[in-house]
């Protein structure tokens, strides 16, 4: 027999918790909605925090150990905050055959980060994907959620360079607008 649902208040005043609460309500706070709810948390906040896991655990009456187990079992969930931009290099078979590892090396060389890491200034996260299913466009890379195909080491370096240099660009555009 499961204990009755406890109502506890969200970890913070952040209004975005309402979205998470809504999702849990939609599933009647059923324990089996755990993965769906974790998806919502990650979509809303960008990553999973310890506080979020604890909150979800109590709300869905799932042991915290299980919530933590699920959150770390699946590759899609991350407990690290992502950078301002993300660059996901597909490492599926078709992309591997067409040189995905060279693309990864190129980013590492340009941004000095390895897959799974974020640059020190928080501008860029480098990630890998198992397969995007865009094999017709191999090698494929997702820049900020946009799939781009037939990437070369030159084109990925250009893109990464632009991401890294963004702060300066931002301040430039700002100053142009101020002059107006």
């Amino acid at each position: 027999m499961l204990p009755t649902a406890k109502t506890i208040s969200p970890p913070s005043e952040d209004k975005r918790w309402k979205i998470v609460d809504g999702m849990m309500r939609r599933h009647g706070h059923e324990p089996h909605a755990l993965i769906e709810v974790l998806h919502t948390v990650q979509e809303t906040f960008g990553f999973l925090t310890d506080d979020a896991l604890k909150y979800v655990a109590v709300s869905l009456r799932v042991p915290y150990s299980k919530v933590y187990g699920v959150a770390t079992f699946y590759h899609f969930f991350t407990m690290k905050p992502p950078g301002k931009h993300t660059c996901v290099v597909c490492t599926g078979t078709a992309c591997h055959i067409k040189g995905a590892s060279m693309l990864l090396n190129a980013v590492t060389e340009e941004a000095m980060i390895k897959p799974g890491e974020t640059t020190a200034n928080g501008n860029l996260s480098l990630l890998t994907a198992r397969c995007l299913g865009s094999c017709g466009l191999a090698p494929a890379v997702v820049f900020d959620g946009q799939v781009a195909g037939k990437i070369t080491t030159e084109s990925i370096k250009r893109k990464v360079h632009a991401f890294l240099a963004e702060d300066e660009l931002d301040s430039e555009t700002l100053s142009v607008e101020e002059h107006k």
Partner: protein
Amino acid sequence: MNQDDLANIAAQTKQNDNRYDHVIKVCVAAGCLSANADQVKTQLESELKQRGLETCCKVKGVGCMGLCAAGPLVAADANEKMFREVTPADASALIDSVMDDKPAPPAIVMDPQLDFFTGQKKIVLENSGEIDPEKIEDYIAADGYEALFHVITKLKPLGVIEQVTKSGLRGRGGAGFPTGLKWTTVYKAGGTQKYVICNADEGDPGAFMDRSVLESDPHRVLEGMAIAAYAVGANKGFIYCRAEYPLAVKRLRIAIRQAESNGLLGMNIGDTHFDFKVEIRLGAGAFVCGEETALIGSIEGGRGTPRPRPPFPAQSGLWNAPTLINNVETFANIAPIIRRGGEWYASIGTDKSKGTKVFALAGRVNNTGLIEVPMGITLRDIIFKLGGGIPEGREFKAVQSGGPSGGCVPEQYLDIPVDYDSLASVGSIMGSGGMIVMDETSCMVDVAKFFMDFCMTESCGKCVPCRVGTTQMHNILERISEGKAGKKDLELLQRLTGMVKAASLCGLGQTAPNPTLTTLRYFMDEYRAHIEEGRCPAGICHPVKVEEEAEVGV
């Protein structure tokens, strides 16, 4: 909604479409969208509007046309004219070509009579590239939901199963279990609550058939699921889809909403007593969840780890209720089988593998993309006729089918027919349909290492043979590619493949050695070159020859 309403919608939609002299179809599946197909579509629309032609020519977003390598793709009317690599700047010339028959720039003209198109036989993909995947009316006008109505008003559950059994359809997820038999087992299982699950966790790297079907024709999958639910006596269904496929999920959500508001899903479907509700469950990036018991564990909200079978899900699955699990492509075959009869379907293909199969052709081949071919076609025809051969005049080396569970088939077997049994006889599997072509620039040791790395990372860790075995095999393969391995390592690798295959709990571990086994069998010379000569024939690995034979240590 009843059958007359359905016919009315179909007639109305066709009438609306006939008002236009021409229709320009723009592919809006993920492949072409990432090549800016949406901008092409917008530009075509605004160009037509500017010329005041929007009443005689319609621009329509459609599903995948197959030749992803040449996207964005555009086709006009009944595909008499096709265009490739279209940019927004080509819109004006393209419209001239369609409306006034003026020659279009050669760079964007594509011959609809290419072997790539004429060599196919489309059943699952019959609507892909033809209908708007976000409009239920389009699907209904293409005889959509007709089979569902026929089933729920005229057939008994056993009558439905009889047609599916007659068709000879086998599971398209990879293992090839007879679909009719699976349905019968779930039908016979006791209990009042049963479930239907659609496995859309297409995790094989290099496979994108299911994504394409869901993005191009989502209603077809829903209709197949509803027919299955009626046949086995289920009233609730789940689609377990990869979170990595946001567009497929979006279109599925739209399709479910539309079907519900038209009374084609939900309570009292077609004014009968048949209820069927479908929900989407998102995967979270675990390859093992493609295995049915792991998938069930994931839908229940836990880790996706498999459990021993029996009991099979057909007897005790989701929340211990009898559960029917089929793959996207299997469900996509159901409506045409019901519409045209099991015998018709069984007349296509080979003796033991009926119908057609969708393949995702990728890697070192000219025409990468999606194809649907009758079972029994040769690998040579797929790669050299439909696929247009190997680019840059390079030599074919191997074709990999079945992803991390499959094997590499070398040149000498290119003339075997593509069916479940023939592929198994050369050490590979049909798999879900990924087909990766490799040429002389691919190193087979590297390929084996790549797949073993995949299996090692994706192993859920529940059973020892898979968890430890894949890691050890990966370590040996890594040593070989670095030139640090000795002859004893090869023997050990051989022994490990047999052990992991025999002792693992689920399909992931049982098939994980396949890429290694087939490369060992067909490309032993490459392994030897790494070990004995410290040389990688393809120039991918950088082995450093060690003079002393390395010690073997596990």
